[in-house]
């Protein structure tokens, strides 16, 4: 796993039966948490382009409405046990945390029944922050393929490459 060597990561490698280990990342200020058990590896976007992966864009499957989404430091997550090597583009993760499953909150029924994607399955409070839990297995089926170069526009990787 590259890029997310955090203190909490190193201190809590063990996950008990009543816990879930989450990769925490933000896209346009919205905080997400993904089950680490669904992740094979994570690499920089530029590195992922060199792999024979089916790279797909997270935010094209989960609509941010009329917000123009920009990735600051795009990373690609390779989904574990996928039939094909599916890489999902997210923004630079912030942390990895172990969460007791008792602290996971169901989404309100009104929202649960009217969301347009089922990949967001619950939420958890991390202090003052709320993380939406994302199931990458559910997500991968509804993700369109992306044009790699288009994604890099406005990202910091693009600036580095242009230099």
């Amino acid at each position, binding site marked *: 796993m590259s890029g997310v060597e955090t203190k909490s990561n190193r201190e809590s490698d063990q996950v008990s039966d009543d816990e879930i280990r989450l990769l925490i990342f933000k896209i346009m200020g*919205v905080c997400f948490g993904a089950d680490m058990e669904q992740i094979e590896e994570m690499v920089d976007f530029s590195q992922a382009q060199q792999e024979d992966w089916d790279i797909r864009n997270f*935010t094209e499957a989960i609509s941010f409405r009329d917000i123009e989404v920009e990735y600051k430091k795009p990373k690609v997550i390779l989904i574990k046990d996928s039939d094909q090597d599916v890489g999902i583009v997210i923004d630079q993760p912030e942390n990895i945390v172990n969460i007791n499953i008792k602290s996971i909150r169901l989404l*309100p*029924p009104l929202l649960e*029944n009217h969301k*347009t*994607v089922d990949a*967001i399955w619950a939420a958890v409070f991390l202090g003052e922050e*709320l993380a939406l839990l994302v199931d990458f297995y559910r997500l991968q089926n509804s993700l369109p393929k992306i044009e790699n170069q288009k994604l890099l526009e406005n990202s910091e990787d693009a600036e580095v490459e242009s230099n």
Partner: protein
Amino acid sequence: MGEEIEKRKSDRILEAIKKRLDEKQTIQVEEKKVELVVFTLNDAFYAFYGKDVKEILSVLTIYFVPGTPKYILGIVNVRGDIQSVLNIRTFLNIPEQGLTEGKGRIVIAEKNGVRSGVLVDSVVDVVEVPEESIKQAISTLNEEIRYFVVGETTYKNNNVVLLDIGKVFEKISEGKIEPSAEIPNK
């Protein structure tokens, strides 16, 4: 004879008293009151039935949830539980207007087993009004909006549109709201 007249007189007095009591009760029955939670949206007055309002919260952090329709503003943390927050302007075709700092409120409403928060500009009062003071909504109201309107009443000389939050929940459940409906900015 005089005793009989006195009896009749007492009967008459008793009858008069009973009649007055009956009239009072009739008036009380006629003046059945309902509780309303009066709130504002863009300086106009609206209300929900008090029985449908569970609590009123200061505006908390509303967390946007991608992949949801525009009428769902997001979710809030209510003492550890998560509640959805609706943008009722979507249903009433009211232009968006920024909240005045510290004035916005989230009204947690529940009807027919559905519970959600509704963001309003301010909660003005919780009042009891005679049920008969609620009149039919004016006919000039757009038909789509009138679907959510129970009627109209007054509060301190202001016109108040009484809304049925159950109808809003019902409309959402039926999936008849256009998810991408744009609200014009004021």
